[in-house]
């Protein structure tokens, strides 16, 4: 199972639609400071169900919508989707590719979709249960957070161990 592509639109600094087509193996994302690389990682975690604005470096979820910078119109909708191959039928669905999408409008409406069918966040977390994919899993390591594994009190650190036990 791997990600075929990531689509982002209106999310943080990605005002216009962008698509990253991935292969199994290693994809590197590079570019100057502030160009949007970590925003891609935020988009992935957001689609997977990250509910805490602080974990996405925001004060409110509304801050995720492209804010227009000093030269553009702010976006009315933020959207991100992951298109995942369902190789080996690891995910409990029939289709060979699964599209998981999340969107947020400026009016505050927040919606989830699996293969374009509206669903709940719970459906997405259940879809990925036991695959190691998920907001709290070890599958995404944020910038400047690597040291936290070492700094957390020993009691907090065990959370990582409980994930796989």
């Amino acid at each position, binding site marked *: *199972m*791997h*990600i075929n592509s990531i689509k982002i639109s209106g999310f*943080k*600094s*990605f*005002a216009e639609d*962008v*698509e*990253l*087509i*991935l*292969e*199994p*193996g*290693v*994809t*590197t*994302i*590079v*570019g*100057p400071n*502030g*160009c*949007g*690389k*970590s*925003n*891609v*990682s935020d988009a992935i975690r957001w689609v997977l169900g990250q509910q805490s604005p602080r974990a996405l470096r925001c004060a409110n979820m509304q801050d995720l919508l492209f804010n*227009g*910078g*000093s030269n*553009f119109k702010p976006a009315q909708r933020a959207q991100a989707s992951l298109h*995942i191959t369902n190789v080996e039928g*690891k995910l409990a669905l029939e289709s060979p590719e699964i599209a998981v999408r999340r969107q947020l409008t400026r009016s505050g409406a927040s919606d989830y979709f699996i293969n374009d069918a509206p669903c709940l966040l719970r459906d997405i977390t259940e879809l990925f249960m036991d695959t*190691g*994919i998920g907001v709290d*899993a*070890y*599958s*995404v*390591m944020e*910038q*400047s957070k*690597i*040291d936290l*594994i*070492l700094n957390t*009190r*020993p*009691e*907090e*650190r*065990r959370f*990582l*161990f409980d*994930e*796989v*036990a």
Partner: protein
Amino acid sequence: SREAFLSAFEQIRANFQEVFEELFNGGETELLLTDPSDVLESGIDIIACPPGKKPQSITQLSGGERSLVAIALLFAVFKIKPSPFCVLDEVDAALDESNVLRFANLIRTYAQQTQFIIITHNKRTMEIADVMYGVTMEQAGLSKIVSAKFGNEIRA
């Protein structure tokens, strides 16, 4: 359950030593339950000793050594139940050149079963990419994506 945790814990301990040795070219590690009598609530202490040094608290390790220890712990857990994909955002920032090379080699071994998305400024890390995406902001405030796809021809 207590047994499930202890069994995972033993595996993580062994994996941690293994990955640490690969990243440090040797050395000794230990993972200890702070309260062995209360396995399901106990904290976990980390002892990590690079080759030739004396085991001390990990607070005395250098910035780059701490990054490697954290990476080793992350992958020690990961090896038990690898996720299909893994996103790493600049975890190589504190590493010197030879450590980045070891980190990159480690990633390549795991990349056989796991898809990696690695955000980096480091040229050595970029060299192990199958696909590389550049994010640009030619117009201030507006991110765009440019792809520079490698594939096997470069690494053959």
